């Protein structure tokens, strides 16, 4: 057993209201500068939709993630030889149009306009070229299905649905959408790290945050192709790649990242997961149908004495164990099993988990009126979003896994309705609890965690203990804390 620490995240999709506050706070802190205008380290997509950049889930185009061939796992992008041949010519990159061309407005059109009958309008101008452009897309262009004919219907996750099923979900009374906030998953087996020819991307040992060294990066952009979630971006101004750093300067001081902290819907949770690094190889090589199970098997029980012993042997503070035991992420992912990784089939072992959305219930037409189905609260099959679709997103196609999650989520609602409203019989409540495999105490705990958890319970972030990582603190007096001050720029 080789126990390691990973700062992990859970996003509760049922609670996301698509307000983009997370994206804006991230933008204002990290990417509001030349060369990074088009980057959204945190973005909120509407599903069904093609996302940002367009069709990022289509790995036939972008070659992100890993592929298993004869029990050997290789980056889908390329091997070492092909990497060398392609080093000056990365062929699988999204174009700026697939992201969107960032723009501002020529406000002088308003200020300098002469008096006239109509109101003046400011022309949009490209932040890249400075020329006037016609705005055609943006990072949330298909918000609330506004681009349905073009974007929602081309969602790669709909590929397993039949034409008939697809047509049904786009009918007015059945149409659905939910929001999918995305940040870097800080994977356990990141492809961006594997395909970087410069060795510029690394995963921090102390907390598992994946970072790009601005000093080592040579702008080959293999990481952009290699990351299946398209969460590494190329800064055209500095010639370096950039990505979500999980606000590590904040995390190190016990604060939640900006997007977590500013989240209006309080959908975000952060905590420590302990995992067994020895099992990573076997986990990433398991079949698609077993990949989620294998990933969850990696995660260790922080109450297990063997795990605690192993951590102590490594000289890790006991305080960390306490944080791991109180981690909301551990509860969501391992204890209650209601959070799943996004696209686990990419085999990067993402460490950001999602609680799937329950969504509006299905309705039926009766005499030209829409009525709710009677058993709308019971069967996952009655949800508007097809289980197949959600399985494509969160369980590598395993529908049973989604159904199991829903059984538990529904059990919470049934239980609380039984308790608070009192219009359900005890037998009915017991039936759902039995199906979910949860007792009343656990259901209360889930309810509290998902609904009324305080900030201290949502973000259980262990102290980084930077001061303890240095043998002689006086040697670094006046240095530590100021960090690396050289401006990132081309040096070749």
């Amino acid at each position: 057993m080789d126990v390691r620490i990973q700062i992990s995240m859970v996003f509760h999709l049922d609670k996301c209201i698509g307000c983009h506050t997370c994206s804006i706070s991230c933008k204002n802190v990290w990417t509001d500068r030349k060369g990074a205008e088009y980057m959204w380290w945190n973005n909120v997509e509407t599903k069904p939709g093609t996302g940002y950049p367009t069709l990022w889930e289509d790995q036939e185009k972008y070659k992100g993630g890993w592929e298993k061939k004869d029990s050997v796992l290789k980056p889908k992008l390329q091997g070492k030889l092909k990497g060398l041949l392609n080093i000056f010519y990365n062929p699988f990159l999204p174009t700026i149009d697939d992201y969107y061309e960032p723009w501002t407005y020529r406000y002088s059109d308003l200020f300098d306009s002469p008096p006239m009958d109509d109101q003046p309008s400011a022309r949009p101008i490209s932040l890249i070229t400075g020329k006037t452009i016609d705005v055609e897309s943006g990072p949330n262009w298909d918000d609330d299905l506004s681009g349905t004919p073009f974007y929602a219907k081309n969602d790669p996750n709909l590929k397993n649905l039949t034409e008939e099923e697809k047509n049904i979900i786009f009918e007015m009374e059945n149409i659905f959408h939910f929001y999918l906030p995305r940040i870097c998953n800080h994977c356990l087996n990141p492809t961006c790290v594997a395909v970087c020819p410069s060795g510029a991307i690394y995963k921090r040992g102390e907390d598992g945050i994946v970072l790009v060294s601005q000093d080592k990066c040579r702008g080959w952009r293999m990481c952009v192709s290699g990351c299946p979630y398209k969460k590494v971006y190329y800064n055209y101004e500095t010639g370096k790649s950039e990505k979500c750093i999980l606000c590590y300067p904040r995390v190190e001081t016990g604060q939640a990242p900006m997007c977590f902290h500013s989240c209006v819907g309080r959908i975000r949770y952060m905590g420590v997961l302990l995992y067994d690094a020895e099992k990573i190889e076997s986990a990433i090589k398991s079949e698609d149908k077993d990949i989620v199970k294998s990933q969850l098997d990696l995660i260790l029980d922080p109450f297990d004495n063997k795990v605690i012993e192993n951590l102590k042997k490594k000289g890790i503070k006991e305080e960390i164990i306490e944080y791991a035991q109180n981690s909301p992420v551990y509860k969501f992912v391992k204890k209650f099993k209601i959070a799943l990784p996004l696209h686990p089939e990419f085999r990067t072992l993402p460490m950001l988990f999602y609680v799937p959305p329950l969504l509006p219930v299905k309705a039926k037409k009766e005499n030209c009126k829409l009525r709710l189905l009677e058993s709308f609260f019971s069967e996952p099959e009655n949800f508007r979003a097809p289980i197949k679709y959600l399985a494509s997103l969160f369980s590598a196609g395993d529908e049973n896994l989604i159904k199991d999650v829903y059984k538990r989520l529904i059990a919470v609602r049934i239980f609380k309705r039984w308790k608070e409203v009192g219009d359900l019989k005890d037998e009915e409540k017991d039936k759902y609890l039995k199906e979910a495999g949860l007792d009343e105490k656990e259901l209360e705990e889930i309810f509290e965690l998902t609904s009324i958890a305080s900030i201290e319970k949502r973000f259980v972030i262990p102290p980084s203990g930077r001061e303890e990582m240095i043998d002689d603190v006086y040697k670094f007096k006046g240095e530590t804390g100021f960090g690396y001050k050289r401006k990132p720029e081309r040096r070749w």
Partner: protein
Amino acid sequence: MQILILAVLITIGSFEKGKEIFVKKCSACHTIGEGKRVGPDLMGITEIRNIEWLKKFINKPSDFFGKDKIADSLLKEYAIKMPDQNLEEEEILSIIEYLNTASKGEMKVEEKKEVKISPEEIPFDKEKYERGEMLFKGEIIFKNKGLPCISCHSIKNLFTFGGGKLGPDLSLSFKNYGEEGLKLALKDIPFPTMVPVYKNKPLLEEEIDAITYFLSKLETKNKEKNPFTFAIILAFLIFLIPLFIFRNRSKGVRKNLLKGGK
């Protein structure tokens, strides 16, 4: 009238002087009874042209092109403009006298055995050719420090990065002038633009010989494939290979979706 004017002119001009000037300035392009060279054979020219016209034309032919029918028809036939000579009137008259006398046969033009040698017939001397080329390109400086030919002239297809554009392309110079004409032109340079340049820096016999030989072999050499041209074509083809291999690169998907594609 024509005869009268001619008679007057002849008394003024001097045959010997006319011959000297002709050999020096005209013989590179013209012959008297030996056939066409760069310009027409001038045998009997005093009979077919108006003497006044001839006088003016010899002095400043540039005034005639585009205005005079005869000059234009000559230009059309020979495709090269005769340069202005800047001669004194007395010198022009001497030339005309020499042309008149030589054409009538009163004065015997020295018998010259016409030797027409095609470039292919001249055996290829690599050393001589290379020396000529190096002199042309300025890789070997002329003994008297004259400017290398490439400063003003180019040779089509031979030099990858071309040559000067002030003077004409010399690819066909040997064909136009012949060996003798070329040597004469290089020895007693008749071209007004070149005269001041080489006035005090004449080319040596050996240098003239090498350059003439180099120019004589151009046609044969031009038939061979220029290695530079071949290298450029090869480099271009190599450049096309990655374009072909990665032809699917960076084609955005969004616009295609809007068109209904996948």
